[in-house]
């Protein structure tokens, strides 16, 4: 099988060597977890417990706020201490604080449901709505919604995304090596739910050991095809991965289902296996704590809701020159100004950079080198969008289609003049959407 790839994109430094060979370590349970009601795209969940109430591990404490939403389950057993209303990354968020009693008592609802051979497609899709599973690659899109396309959208291709193209992060890599079978259990369940006979398991070719592990676990099962995709950023972006493997283009403004595809991240797929085969909802995940700003980078299995400061302690604490905290990877992650923030279902990485790695020079004039045009994986001309946005000429900026931008950051990364290209495209997007709302 040849190497699949897409047009555009760029080569980013991997920086994965700090953790790629380190097995996953169980994070010591924190004294309390802080469960946000906003861990997914869609309506926030509604708190259904009260302070003082006793809860168990795996118990629903936040009810999905609608169809496009997901339940939140307690990741510890213990007592609800307080319901906080906090501002996290500028967004008002309800957070349930649960004091951990250390007993790890499971809730009665946690029990095996079945596997791909015993459950029907209907049962799997219905069951997922209670699993709390959302896209764990970063977007946090509720999985049951993704797997319930309207009847006119016929799904023929399911792709498991093991590209992990973000630098520094090694959670999917370690999962593929250490929990291969669990991932495949999930894959078979999703195939059943989608009623497709086969799926592609896409892994960047810089993770040869993971590709080997998967191939040997798949064995003679012809329904799961392990494919190497070229190591290139953003290979793991949903639209680019679909294009690499099927040559189809998700239409502008559309969803993968519009071209008959569903893509699910490795961690998400594994979570599906955990839920149906072991009854465990999404309450734990793997998180890489890494970067030049921590002393001992580490791959951790964490309870959702563990504070970032607790994770940093497991990584040997902050280095003396640590200055920047990023939730996720360096290309698309959000930087935050505090460690007093709880992790969520989508916290696959906690990257801390020291002064040297975090420094970005001041922008200089664009010399029109065209690198941003070369690397844009959706074929935009970032220099022009940025130029007209900064001029305040929104109509002209809009004619360059900023709304199609996937915000992968390749243009800003590559720009020799250090221009904040993707940032000005975000500004353009926001202004365009606001002006549309008004009219």
């Amino acid at each position, binding site marked *: 099988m040849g190497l699949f790839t897409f047009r555009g994109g*760029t080569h*980013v*430094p991997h920086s994965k060597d700090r953790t790629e060979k380190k097995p996953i370590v169980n994070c010591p349970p924190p004294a309390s977890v802080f469960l946000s009601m906003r861990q997914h795209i869609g309506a926030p969940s509604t708190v259904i417990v009260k302070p003082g109430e006793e809860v168990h591990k795996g118990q629903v404490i936040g009810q999905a706020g609608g169809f496009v939403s997901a339940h939140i389950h307690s990741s510890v057993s213990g007592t609800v201490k307080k319901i906080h209303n906090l501002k996290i990354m500028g967004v008002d968020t309800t957070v349930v604080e649960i004091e951990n009693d250390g007993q790890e008592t499971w809730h009665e609802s946690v029990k095996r449901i079945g596997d791909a051979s015993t459950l029907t497609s209907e049962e799997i899709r219905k069951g997922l709505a209670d699993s709390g599973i959302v896209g764990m690659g970063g977007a946090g899109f509720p999985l049951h919604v993704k797997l319930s396309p309207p009847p006119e959208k016929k799904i023929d291709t399911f792709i498991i995304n093991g590209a992990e193209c973000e*630098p520094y992060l090694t959670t999917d890599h370690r999962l593929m090596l250490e929990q291969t079978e669990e991932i495949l259990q999930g894959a078979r369940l999703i195939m059943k739910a989608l009623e497709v006979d086969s799926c592609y398991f896409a892994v960047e070719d810089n993770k040869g050991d993971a590709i080997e592990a998967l191939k040997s676990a798949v064995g003679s099962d012809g329904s799961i095809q392990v494919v190497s995709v070229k190591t290139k950023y953003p290979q793991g972006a949903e*639209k680019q991965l679909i*294009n690499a493997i099927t040559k189809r*283009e998700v*239409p*502008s*403004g559309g969803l993968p289902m519009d071209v008959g595809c569903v893509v699910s991240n490795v961690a998400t797929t594994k979570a599906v296996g955990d839920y149906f085969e072991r009854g465990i909802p999404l309450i734990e995940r793997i998180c890489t704590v890494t970067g030049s700003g921590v002393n001992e980078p580490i791959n951790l299995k964490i309870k959702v809701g563990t504070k970032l400061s607790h994770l940093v302690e497991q990584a040997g604490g902050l280095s003396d020159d*640590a*200055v*920047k905290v*990023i939730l996720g990877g*360096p*290309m*698309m*992650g*959000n*930087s*935050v*100004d*505090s460690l007093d923030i709880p992790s969520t279902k989508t916290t696959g990485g906690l*990257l801390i*950079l020291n002064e040297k*790695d*975090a420094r*970005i020079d001041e922008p*200089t*004039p*664009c*010399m*029109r*080198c*065209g690198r941003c*045009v*070369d690397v844009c*994986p*959706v*074929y*935009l*001309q970032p220099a*022009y969008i940025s130029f007209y946005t900064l001029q305040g000429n929104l109509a*002209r900026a809009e*004619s*360059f*289609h900023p709304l*199609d931008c996937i*915000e992968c*950051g390749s243009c*800003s*990364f*590559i*720009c*020799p*003049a*250090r221009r904040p290209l*993707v*940032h000005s495209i*975000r500004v353009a997007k926001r202004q365009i959407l606001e002006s549309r709302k008004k009219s």
Partner: protein
Amino acid sequence: MELMQATSSPHIRAPETTTSVMRDVLIALVPTTAVGLYNFGLNAGLLTILCLASCVLFEALFQKLRKQPVTIGDLSAAVTGLILALNLPSNAPLWIAPIGSFFAIIVVKQLFGGLGQNFMNPAMGARVFLVISYPTIMTRFIDPVTDTISQATPLSLIKAASAVSAASGDGPDYWLGQLPSLKDAFLGFIPGTIGETSALALLIGLVYLLVRKVVTWHIPVVYIAGVFGLTFLLDGFDASMSLYSVCAGGVMLGGIFMLTDYASSPMNKTGQLIYAFGAALLTVVIRLYGGYNEGVMFSVLLMNMLTPMIEHFTAPRVFGTRRKGAN
């Protein structure tokens, strides 16, 4: 612990900067500069130093007067200065250097907004300005082999050969017989400007630019191959004449270092292919059917001016649509 303020992603950048790109261009120019100095000696060296110094100085002065940050550290003015020097005949008077530099930096670059805003290549603009203002000075070259002044470059000999009529005394062979060997033309031992004579040195520079990803193959390769191919097609299928056409004259210097100027060439690849082929066509048409024996200068400038239009018509199709990105 002091945590930085939250900033927008991405949080890392590629190692290349404007300065490192310009430094790479300077490095790529080293071989041809060295051949030029070896060939032409002291006066060529003085012209080179003067062009470099005056370009940098004019940029600094202009920015000081306009109370703008002085950006000579990005090395772009030095690049313009060196390329301008390489475009001068080695025996030109020294005062030509500051005049050309003034035109390149002040008129073409700074008056239009500085780095990235010039609508034509500053050094090429200055060369055309000087050729029109001081035609005699700019078209008399030293023959590095005989060390004498000669107006007969390989290209002018070819022009003369094609212009002779049956009535005149000397046939085409008289002129073509004076041509230097192709080997000398390739290595650089022919009359020409300081930096245009050695195709080999210029190609070494091109390889360096390609390896360092400062330019892609699209513009230089299409241009040079285009001049060769079109000369072959339109001038009697003569492979050796076609080789002279790319080795002698400004095709290599212009195609590798001036046509590729970021600011005045299209950013998208389709546009670059059209732009480079258009320049090749113009060069060959001017040389074969026009009055000049050299066509690189005017073809580069003309294509520079067509760049906005080319970009308009070649805007890439947006992923997942049939729409063209506007321009």
